[in-house]
C-alpha cells in the first residue's frame, strides 16, 4: 500500500482551512501543512513537495495566483496539482485562475462532499499522469 497523498492548504480563514481539511481527509489524503498566507504556502510547498495545493486566491503577502504561477515556473515541483478556491465568481476571475496554471477553480461557498470528490479525482489524475 502506497503512502497517502499529501496536501497543502492555504486560506486566511481558519474555519475554511479546517473545512477543507475535513474534505482532504474524506478524500483519503493527509494534510501536510495548513497555512494562513501566500508566502507561507509557497514555503510549505517548497519544503514538503505536496501532491496537491488547495489555495485561496485573496490572501495576504502572496495571492493564490502568484503562488500558483511560482509552482508552475519551478520545474522541481511543477507536477504539483493546484486547486484554487475563491469567492470571486466572475468569469474573468476564473479565466485568470486557469491562466495562472491552476488545475481546477472552485467557488466559495463549496460543498465539502463535492470538494472531497474533486480532490480524489485530481489526485487520481496525478497518479495516472
Amino acid at each position, binding site marked *: 500500500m502506497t503512502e497517502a497523498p499529501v496536501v497543502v492548504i492555504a486560506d486566511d480563514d481558519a474555519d475554511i482551512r479546517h*473545512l477543507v481539511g475535513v474534505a482532504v481527509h474524506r478524500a483519503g489524503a493527509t494534510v501536510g501543512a495548513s497555512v494562513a498566507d501566500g508566502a507561507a504556502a509557497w514555503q510549505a510547498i517548497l519544503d514538503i513537495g505536496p501532491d496537491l495545493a488547495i489555495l485561496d486566491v485573496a490572501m495576504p503577502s502572496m495571492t493564490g495566483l502568484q503562488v500558483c504561477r511560482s509552482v508552475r515556473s519551478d520545474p522541481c515541483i511543477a507536477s504539483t496539482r493546484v486547486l484554487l478556491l475563491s469567492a*470571486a465568481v466572475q*468569469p474573468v476571475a476564473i479565466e485568470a485562475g486557469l491562466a495562472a496554471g491552476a488545475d481546477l477553480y472552485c467557488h*466559495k*461557498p463549496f460543498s*465539502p462532499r463535492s470538494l472531497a470528490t474533486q480532490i480524489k479525482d485530481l489526485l487520481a489524475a496525478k497518479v495516472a499522469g
Partner: protein
Amino acid sequence: MAVADRVLSPRQAAPYRTDSVSSFVRHFARDPNSVLERQLCMASTYLLSQLLFLIPGVSAIYLMPVLAAGGLMGAATVGAYFLRAPAVPHRVAMLIPLIDIVAVGLLRAGTGGVGSIFTFMLVLPVISLGVEPGRLPMLIGGPVTVAALLLPVAFDSTQLGDGQWSRIIFGPLILGLTCLSVNELARRLRSRVRVVQRLRREQERLLEEARDNAAASAATSALLRESTNELVSVIDAVTEQAIVGTDRNGRVDVFNTGAQKMLGIAAHDAIGRSIARFDGFDELTPSLQMFLTEVRSGAPQVRDWTYTNRNGTELSIKVAVTGRRDAAGDVDGFLFVGTDVTADREQARMKDQFVNLISHELRTPLSSILGYLELLEDDEETPLTAEQAQYVGTIERNANRLLRLVSDLLFTAQVESGRFQVQEQLVELHSVVAASIDSARPVAAARGVTLRMAACEEPVFVSGDPMRLAQAVDNLVSNAVKFTPSGGRVAVTLGTDGTDGTDGTDGARALISISDTGVGIPADEVDRLFSRFFRASTASANAIPGVGLGLSITRAIAVAHRGQIRVASTVGAGTTFTLDLPQVRVPRAGGSAGVPAGLPAALSATAHAG
C-alpha cells in the same frame, strides 16, 4: 468702420468758406465764360488803350466817334453786369461783344481811320464771340466786324486808297479765322468740361454709394461683433467643460476658460497651434486622424481619454467631438467638448471595489456556515434527529437565500458598471426550463401551488451563458410561485414564435412564458417593474419577501442575450412574463434545420403539489 472713415474724410476736409473775397472768386470760377468777366477784360483794355492818346501823333481826329465809342463801351460793361447770370441765353449775351466791336470801329474812325493804332482791340471781342457756343455769333459777328472796319471810310472816303483794300479784306479774314479757331477750341473745351462734369457726377454718385455701403457694412459688422461677443462670452462662461474648436487641419481657434482650467494651458499658448502638438495629447494623437475621419463622415464621436496635466495629475476626460460645418454644410473644423469624469470614475471604481469586497467578505462566512451544515448532515457516526435535521435545513435554506442576495447584488453592480459580458455557447432550453421547475417544485409544493411545464417536442437552441439563462428562468419561475396564493397555478411553456426560417433566419425567436394566477401587478407599475429595488405594491401588501433585484437582473440577462422580456398582468387574475430570445438553428443529423414550428404540442412534464 475704417472704410466709412476714409469715405467721409474729404467732405470734412473741405469746409465751406463764407468770406466775401472767396465768394467773389468762386462766383467767376463757376462760369469761366462769364460775359461780365470778358467784358471787364475788354473795358480794362479799352481804358488802358486811352493812354495811347498820350503818345505824340496820336490824337482824336473826330471827337464825336471817340466819345461815342467810350459811351458804347460803358454801356456794354453795364449791360454785361446785368447779363452775367449763367441763365441768360447766349444769343442775348453775344450782344455785348458786338457792341464792343462797334465801339472799336468808332474809336478807329475817330483816331485815324483804317490805319488807326486801335485796330488790335478788335481781337478781344472777336475772341469773345468765338468763345460763345455755336456758329451763329460768328455769322452775325462777321458782317458787324467788316462794318466796323469800314466805319472810318464812312467818315473819310479818301482813306480808301492804294493798299488799304488789302487791309480791309485781310483784316476780317484773319479775325474770322481767329474767331473760328477759338470757337472750335472752345467747343472742344466745353465738351471736355462736360465729360469732366459727367465724370464728377458719376464719382460723386459712386462716393455716395460707397458711403452707404460702408454704413451698411459697419452696421452689419457691429451686429456680427455683438453676436460674436455674445457667443464668446457664453463659451467662456462654461468653466466646467473644456470647449476647444479647431479648423479642418486641427489648428486651435477656440479655447475656452474651461479648457484652460481643465488642461492647464493658457489660451494664448493654445490658439493657433495644432491640437496634435499639445503636451499630454499623445494618447489622443495616433487615433486622431481615424477619429476625425469618422466625425467628417457625420458621426459625432465620444471617447474617454486619459490626460496628464502639468502637475502630473492624471485626469479621465470624456471627449465628444463633433464637426463644425460651413455655410455649404461641409465639415470645416472640429469642436472638442471635454468633461472631467475623474471623480466619477474614481467613485465608480471605489464602488466596484466596495461591492467586490463586501461580496467576498460575505461569501467567506457563508462558506463556513454552509460547509459545516453539510458536515452536520453528513455525520454518519451521530446522525441528526428529525427535529435537528429540520432546524439544520432551515438554517441552510436561509444561508442559501443570503448567498443568492449577495450574488444578485454583485451581478447588479457588474451590469451597472457595464462589466457584464455573456460567455456564449450553444444552450438547449428544455433542460434549462426543466431544471428551474425542478428547483421551484419543493417551494411550490409547500405553498400549494400547481406547477406545470408545457414544451414543444423539438429542441430549442439559443446562444448564451447557460448559468445566466438558468438564473433568468429561475427568477421568473420562483417569482411566479412566490406571488401565487395557495391553490393557484403556474404554467411554464417553451416554444418558438413559429418562424420556420424559410423566409430568413433572423426572425426565429425562442419563447419562454411563465403564467401565474397570482396577485397581479397594477398597470401603472408595470413600467417600473424592471427597475432595481422596485417592488410592486401588491408584493408589499401581500408581505411577499424580496428586495426587488430579480426582475432587473432577469432583464439585464435578456438584453445581454439580445433578447427582451414582456409582461402582461391583471390585478387579482395573474401575470404572464415572456422571455424572448433569438433562436439559433442547429442542423439535425437528418439534414433539415432543427427549428421547431408552432406552439408547444404536448405537456411534457407536470407537477402537482399537494
